[in-house]
């Protein structure tokens, strides 16, 4: 099986972000999407710490740690961008004003349940941040993750075994093998990468897929 690289996955997600969209990119893999947004589209990036119109990282030496993203890394503000407080920022999210949110995940269920905040390990210190707000807030929630765990198990499951972030909140899944839509009939295959046969994709995926 030939898998997409992380950059190729980011490129594929970026292609589906339309002109004029307000988008939140989660910490980790989704952050890479920012580097691949088509230059001819105006897309506004939201960062939940209180920033709309987020630009790229500043040049070395120009960092201002009063201007950071949700990952606490220094960023820049694009012309027309705005700052606001936390209640306004989460109103944008919870109130359904963001068009798309892209999140990483440990597991996604066939009905669009998401687990991405906590492994549930007894010695782990839990930290949730904005994960639960992001999961349920945007009009469409995209998940971007490797199809399989490091040990080869499907991250797409019948029921999440990790603690849930949100119920039925995921609309589309981008993996390094395929793009899947969450529908009322189950997971529909939108695209399979690198000519992988449907049967092969089905074999490594933990739940039934349909074409």
């Amino acid at each position, binding site marked *: 099986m030939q898998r997409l690289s992380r950059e190729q996955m980011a490129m594929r997600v970026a292609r589906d972000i339309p002109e004029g969209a307000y988008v939140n990119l989660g910490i980790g893999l989704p952050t890479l999407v920012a580097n691949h947004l088509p230059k001819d589209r105006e897309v506004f990036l939201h960062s939940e710490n209180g920033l709309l119109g987020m630009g790229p990282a500043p040049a070395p030496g120009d960092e201002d740690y009063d201007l950071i993203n949700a990952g606490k890394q220094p960023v820049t503000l694009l012309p027309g961008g705005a700052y606001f407080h936390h209640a306004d920022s989460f109103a944008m999210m919870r109130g359904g004003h963001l068009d798309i949110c892209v999140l990483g995940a440990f597991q996604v269920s066939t009905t669009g349940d998401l687990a991405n905040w906590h492994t549930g390990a007894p010695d782990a210190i839990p930290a*949730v941040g904005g994960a639960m707000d992001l999961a349920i807030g945007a009009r469409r929630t995209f998940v971007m993750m490797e199809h399989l765990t490091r040990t080869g198990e499907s991250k797409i499951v019948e029921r999440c075994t990790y603690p849930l972030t949100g119920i039925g909140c995921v609309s589309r899944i981008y993996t390094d093998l395929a793009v899947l839509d969450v529908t009322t009939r189950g997971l529909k295959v939108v695209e399979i990468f690198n000519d992988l046969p449907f049967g092969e994709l089905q074999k490594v995926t933990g739940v039934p897929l349909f074409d």
Partner: protein
Amino acid sequence: MIDKVSASVEAALRDVPDGATVMIGGFGGAGQPAELIDALIAQGARDLTIVNNNAGNGEVGLAALLKTGRVRKIICSFPRQVDSQIFDGLFRAGKIELELVPQGNLAERIRAAGAGIGGFFTPTGYGTELAKGKGTREIGGRMYVLESPIHADVALIKAEKGDRLGNLVYRKTARNFGPIMATAAKLTVASVHEIVPAGELDPENIVTPGIFVHRLVKVPRTVTGPAGFRQAA
């Protein structure tokens, strides 16, 4: 004449009682009122409940306050970070209580307290372990969780500029929790880098109107440092 300016951070925090719930602004290092936290440490109040997005970075500011052992409980959304070793140690030793709250619920619970709201239904967290034991209701075909306001005795926030009336403006994303925490406490203390005459701040641009601020104190301008993330090598 109203004059909310305190002569020093010590004077501004002179009467924080033991057992107080203290909101502290900031998201990582941005907006964290380091001088006010240091003054709270020196003032010595104990058995505190702290409300902040995080649980301290490195060994300074909120982390230094936790290290004193005077914090009984922390209400926050994201305690675990690469540089949260002080909190991590206290938590694993069972020396601090943690109430973990989704970030947007944290913000809205603070806002609700300041706005006189007795509770609210939010979709965030429904069906998750962070909503366990809380009331739920179906509204318009969607499930919601009942959340309660978080009130504080004291809020410590960092702003950029203020006047004697307590009007405040902030700097960039250091604004974060400042404006909502200012509304939710019996005593709101703001640190600012500049105090200007009343009337000089553009009324169209005042972010926190002075009615929400009880004391402000000028502190020297310092450059905010990195916190809470792993820097690329």
